């Protein structure tokens, strides 16, 4: 009985580490490789961001940003095995506490949203997308509300910035 309890305890301890590690590992594997870009914004940086004097009419945006604890991006636009990488990343995640939220398919591009939930609160949102030669994984951690995030773009949509992403894709 006692040994069972200790084994369970150890398993739980390792599970926590494994969850933290799956994305870190993926990043580490491809970081620094040719054509891959990584972006890290840590909780420390978010503390500093919080100290930047607020600007008006960005209330919605800052409300979201204030609750973030980390942003990580790994992306490439020119990688032959992008499809495989996408599949690999996708297979890796659900086993580590992530649940699939939705899929968007557009031409040859597929985007998946996965979340890790802590009861009602979403603690991590992952946007995974892969195309023929492009791949990107965006991980956002913090106290997240999907409605708040999607609302940001609604205001943009009204302002006519529907093609923001496509604009951004061009260097």
């Amino acid at each position, binding site marked *: 009985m006692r040994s069972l309890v200790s084994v369970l305890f150890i398993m739980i301890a390792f599970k926590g580490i494994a969850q933290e590690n799956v994305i870190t590992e993926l990043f580490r594997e491809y*970081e620094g490789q040719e054509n891959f870009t990584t972006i*890290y914004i840590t909780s420390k*940086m978010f503390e500093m961001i919080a100290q930047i004097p607020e600007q008006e009419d960005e209330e919605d945006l800052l409300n979201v940003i204030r609750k973030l604890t980390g942003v990580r991006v790994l992306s490439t636009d020119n990688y032959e095995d992008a499809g495989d990488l996408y599949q690999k990343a996708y297979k890796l995640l659900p086993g580590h506490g992530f649940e699939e939220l939705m899929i968007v398919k557009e031409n040859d591009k597929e985007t998946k949203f996965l979340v890790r939930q802590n009861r009602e609160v979403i603690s991590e949102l992952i946007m995974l997308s892969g195309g023929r030669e492009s791949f990107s994984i965006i991980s956002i951690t913090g106290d997240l509300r999907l409605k708040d995030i*999607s609302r940001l773009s609604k205001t943009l949509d009204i302002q006519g910035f529907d093609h923001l992403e496509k604009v*951004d894709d061009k260097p």
Partner: protein
Amino acid sequence: MDYEEIKILIDKYWRCESTLEEEKMLRDYFLKEHVPSELIPYAGLFKYYGSVSGLETKKIFSPHFGGRQAEVLQPVKTRNIRLAWYYRVAAAVLLILVLFVINEQVGKIKQESVAIVKDTFQDPEEALAETKRILFMVSHELYKVEREASRFAEFSKAEEKFRKTKTKDK
């Protein structure tokens, strides 16, 4: 013997303080004498004791009791549940070792993840701008899904309506 005396003896009996002699007195009393109505509930018990007291066991239990051969009892080998002291020490040492290794590993992993997560930006303004960009990108995708979903909801509503009118027509 009068009623009061017997009452005292019975009380003593229930407190388990009576001597064998006193118990014999009780048995005899209930066997022979006329029992007052208050004591009738106890009469059965002591009468029974009285009737059984005559029985005696045979002086020696025969080894062939009941015609069976006496079984020669062999000591059964049992596993000693109380582990030898050195097993306990070994288990304790092992446990400490395992905890130590786990602690080491956790520390290493934490260090590595701290080491690997280096801020891309040193300037908070830049980081903020990048965060905004990323958030808008995610938000845009999310919004797209939401819009499609609401469109789909409209579509299924319409379909339902269509079906209803169709069934009405029939």
